[in-house]
C-alpha cells in the first residue's frame, strides 16, 4: 500500500489580479522525506509554500496536507503543519522565554521542553530578547518554535538564505536531527542548489509558475545522462526525452531523460550532477500556452 502523501496538489493555480503566480501545479510529496523547492525569483515558490500551509487559497485546483485541505481551519489539520516564513520573523521585544510561552498558549501541541533544551544546548539564553540575538540564533529560535509544535509537515521559505556558513550548518543539523526523530516531512525553498544533495532527497523545480521537474533526487540523477558525441545537424529537441542540446564546433552534448536509451556509436554517456540538471531544466523555455487556465483573449 502506498503511504498517503504529506502534500498533494492537483492542478493548482493561483491568480493575483490579472497574473497567474502559479499554474496547473500537480505534485505529491512522499511522507518522511526532505524536499527542496527550487526556482528563480518570481517563479512562484513562496506562493506554492503559502498555499501548502493554508495561508493562501488556490484560485483553481486543490491542496491537501495528509488528505485534508489546510484552508478548512480545522485545528487538527493546522496543528500538523509548521511554517517558517522568510527571514524567520520573531517579536523582537519578546525574550526567548516569552516566545516559548506564547507558542505554548497558541498551539494544542507544543513541546516546550524540547525547544528549551535545544536552545540551551546551542548556548541561547532564554532571558535574551529576540531582537538582540544574532541572525543565526534568531533562525534557531524560530526553528525551535516551529519544531515544538511537533508538526508532521514543516514548510520553510528560504530558511538559510541570510545565514553565514557555520549558522547554516547548525541550522541543517537541527533540521536533519528533527527528521531523524521521525514522523516529519520537510519542504523548503532554496537557491543554494549545490548544498541540496546533503540535506534533500526529493526535488521540485518550478519556473514561470509551473512545475518543470519533480521527483526522488537519486532516481532523477539515474534517469538522466549527458550524451557527448560528434556534432549533429538535426535538431532532436522535438523528442520528449531530450532536455537540452548544446553544440560546439565538432561535438554536441545532449542532456536526455531515460539514460538507458540506446547510444549511437561514437557517443559517450556521462552521469549528470544535480546542479547541472536543475539549471538545464530552468534554462528550458516554458510553454506559456500549456497552462489549462489561460484567460480567453
Amino acid at each position, binding site marked *: 500500500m502506498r503511504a498517503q502523501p504529506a502534500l498533494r496538489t492537483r492542478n493548482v493555480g493561483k491568480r493575483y489580479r490579472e497574473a497567474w503566480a502559479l499554474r496547473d501545479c500537480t505534485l505529491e510529496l512522499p511522507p518522511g522525506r526532505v524536499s527542496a523547492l527550487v526556482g528563480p525569483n518570481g517563479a512562484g515558490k513562496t506562493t506554492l509554500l503559502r498555499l501548502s500551509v493554508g495561508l493562501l487559497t488556490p484560485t483553481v485546483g486543490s491542496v491537501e496536507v495528509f488528505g485534508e485541505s489546510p484552508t478548512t481551519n480545522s485545528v487538527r489539520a493546522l496543528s500538523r503543519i509548521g511554517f517558517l516564513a522568510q527571514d524567520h520573523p520573531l517579536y523582537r521585544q519578546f525574550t526567548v522565554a516569552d516566545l516559548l510561552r506564547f507558542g505554548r498558549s497558541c498551539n494544542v501541541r507544543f513541546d516546550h521542553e524540547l525547544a528549551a533544551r535545544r536552545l540551551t544546548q546551542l548556548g541561547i539564553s532564554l532571558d535574551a530578547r529576540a531582537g538582540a540575538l544574532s541572525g543565526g540564533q534568531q533562525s534557531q529560535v524560530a526553528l525551535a518554535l516551529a519544531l515544538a509544535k511537533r508538526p508532521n509537515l514543516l514548510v520553510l521559505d528560504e530558511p538559510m538564505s541570510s545565514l553565514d556558513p557555520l549558522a547554516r550548518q547548525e541550522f541543517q543539523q537541527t533540521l536533519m*536531527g528533527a527528521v*531523524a526523530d521521525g514522523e516529519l516531512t520537510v519542504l523548503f525553498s532554496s537557491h543554494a542548489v549545490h*548544498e541540496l544533495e*546533503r540535506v534533500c532527497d526529493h526535488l521540485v523545480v518550478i519556473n514561470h509558475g509551473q512545475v518543470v521537474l519533480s521527483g526522488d533526487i537519486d532516481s532523477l540523477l539515474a534517469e538522466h545522462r549527458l550524451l557527448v558525441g560528434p556534432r549533429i545537424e538535426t535538431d532532436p529537441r522535438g523528442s520528449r526525452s531530450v532536455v537540452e542540446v548544446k553544440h560546439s564546433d565538432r561535438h554536441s552534448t545532449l542532456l536526455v531523460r531515460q539514460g538507458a536509451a540506446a547510444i549511437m556509436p561514437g557517443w559517450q554517456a556521462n552521469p549528470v550532477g544535480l546542479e547541472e540538471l536543475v539549471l538545464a531544466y530552468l534554462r528550458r523555455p516554458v510553454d506559456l500556452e500549456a497552462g489549462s487556465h489561460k484567460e480567453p483573449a
Partner: protein
Amino acid sequence: MFHFRLDTSSGVPPYLQLVQQVQQAVLLGFLQPGDRLPLIREVVESLAINPNTVAKAYRQLEQGDLVTGRPGHGTFVNDTLPAAVPPATYTSLRHGLQTWLRRAYAAGLDDHAIAALFSSVHHQTKTKTKRKTA
C-alpha cells in the same frame, strides 16, 4: 567510532560516498567484523546530512552482505568478509593508477577519453579474467 566524510563537490551522490567509505574501510581493515557503524542519528548530527540518505546507504551495505542491522542495537560489520587487502598493496595500486593518470593527461587525453579508455579496458580485462578463473 567510524567517522564519515562528505565531499559535496565530488559529484558522487552522498549515499554512495557513505557506502564507498565503509567498503574501503573494510577493505583496508580499518573496520573489522563486529564493529558497530555509527547510529543514523550520530551521522546526521556530525555531517548535517539527511537521515534518509544515511538509511539508504546502510540498506545498500546490508544488501551487499557487508553489514547487518540489529534493530535497537545498531548496524554491525559482518564476519564473512573477503580477506582485507593489506594497506601497502592498496597504496601501491593507488600509486600505480596515479602514475598512469598523469601519463594520460600528459599525453593530452581529457576526462572523457580517460573514462572511455578505462571503461573499455576494464570491461575487456574483467571478461578475460573471469573466463580464466572459471
